[in-house]
């Protein structure tokens, strides 16, 4: 245990080393809200998170970025807590707070001394139900979000290329839009857009409270009933399926940006892991994750060896990733940064060759065992971070998965055979489901005049 000696009655009592797996428990409040509690009593701290099953994928064209802007606006007040006061109160409790938005979800969290849990639950429930701010606050915060977009995306050529790649890979899926939003959509975003999104999606049955740390399950449940349970229930809006149509041929895109290094990314549409009761697609999704790990799961794995080593190396770096699961369609990506003097064509061919080799020859038992060993070890290491445990629980809930989804996926991954890995390597890497993006570096133009602000940008 972390807390070795005790000097005061206020601290937790010294407990024996706990079982590694104190299971998380899940409840549903009367208004439909979910509650997930995971005790971990190593230290007198807790993390409290509110997860919404709404992210940028619920947006529609013209208002991209509204989920993320709204996330910023949740800090701007309620009738009871003036704008800016939320973070000040959390700080006064000794806590830290922040929030995050992805394609699949929006989340808010506070890390606090566990004795302060009730205070942050009250604060979070208040803004979940009563977020309210003047238009002027929205206009200011929108400028902050535009600066965020400039920082993360516009001055980063690789981020720009991935933004363009997503917009090329996906046709109907909302994954085609950037989470932060297109700049012109941000320019045109109105306070009413954010308010409407809030009204529509921030309903109890579309939310889950996740609490992990030095807490008592029954007590957390009592607090959740008290603070969140009284929020009136409302129907969760219907979600349009927006199914990504079958891609039937290769897509290629070039992206020019000021840079020194090129970048090649191959994105293949692959099945996603939907359910533990699933069938062949689920098995394939798992096998694709093992394939990615065999290619790039440890120092000295296949891609590194084949592309970045030796006198004839083609790349400065190379990687593989399988999305596995999520609310939308998943991709298997191969990428590499060509070494100086090497062409994107050669690098693309080399990446494909590595998959083709596995399709032809399979993988060794040693490789298979190696990647499985790493996952098993990571399950132990992850217990060190209460925050990461809470984040995993929230992600599982968002995807409609059981609380022990990660443990169960690793159990399933351990059963994947070399034969399955070989099979998916030959099944999913044809050209028809492939999109290739190349970053074409352009010289920095030091003489060029700096970019003008977008017309009508501000005041």
């Amino acid at each position, binding site marked *: 245990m*972390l807390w070795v000696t005790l000097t005061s009655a206020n601290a937790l009592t010294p407990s024996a080393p706990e079982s590694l797996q104190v299971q998380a428990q899940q409840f549903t409040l009367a208004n439909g809200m979910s509650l997930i509690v995971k005790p971990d009593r190593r230290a007198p*701290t807790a993390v409290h998170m509110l997860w919404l099953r709404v992210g940028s994928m619920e947006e529609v064209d013209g208002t991209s970025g509204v989920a993320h802007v709204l996330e910023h606006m949740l800090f701007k007040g309620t009738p009871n807590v003036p704008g800016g006061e939320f973070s000040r109160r959390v700080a006064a409790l000794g806590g830290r707070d922040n929030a995050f938005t992805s394609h699949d979800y929006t989340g808010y969290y506070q890390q606090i001394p566990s004795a302060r849990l009730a205070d942050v639950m009250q604060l979070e429930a208040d803004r979940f139900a009563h977020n309210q701010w003047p238009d002027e606050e929205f206009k200011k915060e929108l400028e902050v979000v535009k600066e965020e977009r400039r920082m993360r995306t516009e001055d980063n050529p690789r981020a720009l290329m991935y933004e363009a790649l997503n917009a090329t890979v996906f046709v109907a899926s909302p994954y085609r839009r950037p989470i932060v939003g297109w700049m012109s959509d941000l320019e045109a975003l109105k306070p009413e857009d954010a308010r409407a999104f809030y009204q529509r999606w921030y309903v109890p049955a579309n939310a889950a409270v996740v609490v992990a740390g030095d807490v008592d399950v029954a007590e957390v449940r009592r607090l959740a009933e008290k603070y969140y349970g009284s929020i009136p229930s409302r129907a969760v809006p219907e979600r349009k399926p927006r199914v990504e149509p079958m891609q039937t041929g290769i897509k290629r895109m070039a992206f020019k940006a000021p840079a020194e290094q090129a970048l090649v990314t191959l994105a293949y549409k692959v099945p996603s892991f939907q359910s533990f009761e699933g069938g062949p697609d689920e098995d394939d999704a798992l096998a694709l994750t093992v394939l990615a790990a065999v290619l790039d799961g440890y120092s000295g794995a296949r891609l590194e060896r084949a592309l970045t080593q030796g006198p004839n190396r083609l790349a400065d770096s190379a990687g593989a990733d399988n999305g596995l699961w999520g609310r939308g369609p998943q991709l298997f990506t191969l990428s590499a940064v060509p070494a100086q003097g090497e062409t994107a064509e050669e690098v693309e061919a080399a990446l494909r060759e590595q998959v083709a080799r596995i399709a032809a020859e399979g993988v060794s038992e040693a490789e298979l065992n190696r990647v499985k060993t790493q996952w098993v070890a990571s399950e132990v290491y992850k217990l060190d971070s209460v925050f990461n445990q809470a984040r995993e629980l929230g992600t599982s809930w968002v995807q409609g998965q059981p609380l022990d989804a990660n443990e169960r996926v690793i159990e399933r991954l351990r059963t994947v055979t070399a034969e399955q890995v070989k099979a998916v390597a030959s099944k999913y890497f044809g050209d028809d489901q492939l999109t290739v993006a190349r970053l074409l570096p352009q010289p920095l133009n030091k003489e060029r005049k700096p970019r003008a602000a977008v017309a009508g940008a501000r005041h």
Partner: protein
Amino acid sequence: MNLMITFKKIIGQAVLIVATSLVGLHAATAAIAIEHWTQPSGAQVFLVQSHAIPMVDVQLDFDAGSRRDPAAQVGLASVTASMSGMGVRANPARGEPALDENALGEAWADLGANFGGHASSDRMSFALRSLTYPDLLAKAVPLAARQLAEPSFPADIWQRERETMSAAIKEANTRPATLAQRAFDQAVYGVHPYGYDTTEDSLKRIEVTHMAELYRQMLQPCRAKVSLVGALTRAQADALVAQLLAGLAGSQSSTAGDAHCQALPAVVEVAPLSQASEQRIAFDSAQAHVLLGQPGYKRNDPDFFALLVGNYILGGGGFVSRLTNEVREKRGLSYSVYSYFAPGLHAGAFTLGLQTRPDQADQALQVSRDVLARFVADGPTEAELQAAKDNLIGGFALRLDSNRKLLDNVANIAWNNLPLDYLDNWTQRVQNITVADIKAAFQRKLQPDRMVTVVLGGAGASAQ
């Protein structure tokens, strides 16, 4: 592709870590028991037993950071640390064959463990993370010991690494953040090693023989500070450390007269600035990068706590700092605005930074300068100080609530020669700080009229 996440505010600005990786202890809670002893080799060991999870984290720190890089071979410490993971020599005495980089990578993956080195300005550090299941740990520790003591520093691998590092440097040189930081560091540090910049040229002058020599001189058990947090008894930890260091020269014993343990030469101090400077650098980017600062203070400075608490109020405290309030919340000028000190063995920089649309850079700079000047002149208000104490003291436990965080704190105590009860007294030290302390400390350390200003982006102008 759905992994991209965007936050309301970047969590814990990486650059802030130096300034805030201190530890807190709630007045009314547990003390952390740090066991400390010195091995016959001279290695100093610091242990916190944490038995809830069957894992251990070990960190070894040596006084071999980049501040000791020869001026002609800037980057030597950093590349030596990373190259130490690129293969180990054969050890005929023990019948162990050489391992190349891939064999080493596979060996670590097979154990579900990892070990590697890196260098910061002050230290060269090596970190081991392993499960403590006896069969695994019994393999992980000797492997780490071999990597620590018998790196092969293969010349062909170094040639490749030099190429990929040079390519990465060229790429970084197209980014506004890199260029602004370099101009700032050079202006603040002058010729001091804290301002050294690894370049393609400096990498060209580094050979594997330099790495081996650096290793021989610096990596000795008598110079090691070893911090451990994990499921080990003291006896187990003692044996682990002895085994880890067994292959290094002088592992058997150390006596004061041994040449290998003589004091290392002093490194010059950072010189104070004599006047203000301002650089306006034209660059075609969506944002201008604004940096403002000067040399700060050394970690052993008696003003440490006043500056820690004061900077929380000025620009360190997340959403509630004065800078965030004035620049972001009131005016919407920036997503990120911050200030931090970087105290080390020398006076690391005080840095105030932000990014904003180029046409707003002057306004944001002016607001920041006003906030800074007023803070240095008047100090915080009583209310601000109380809010800072509420957060720092109330939230102390959040600085210690994982093995990883504990390890950072133990290594901090070990490296900076802080007392073993440092964590027990931390909140009291914060509690004792007054408005007058902060005002006086900031006035001693910061001179707003003699600072470096860098504005990169927008039309620019030549240096003034």
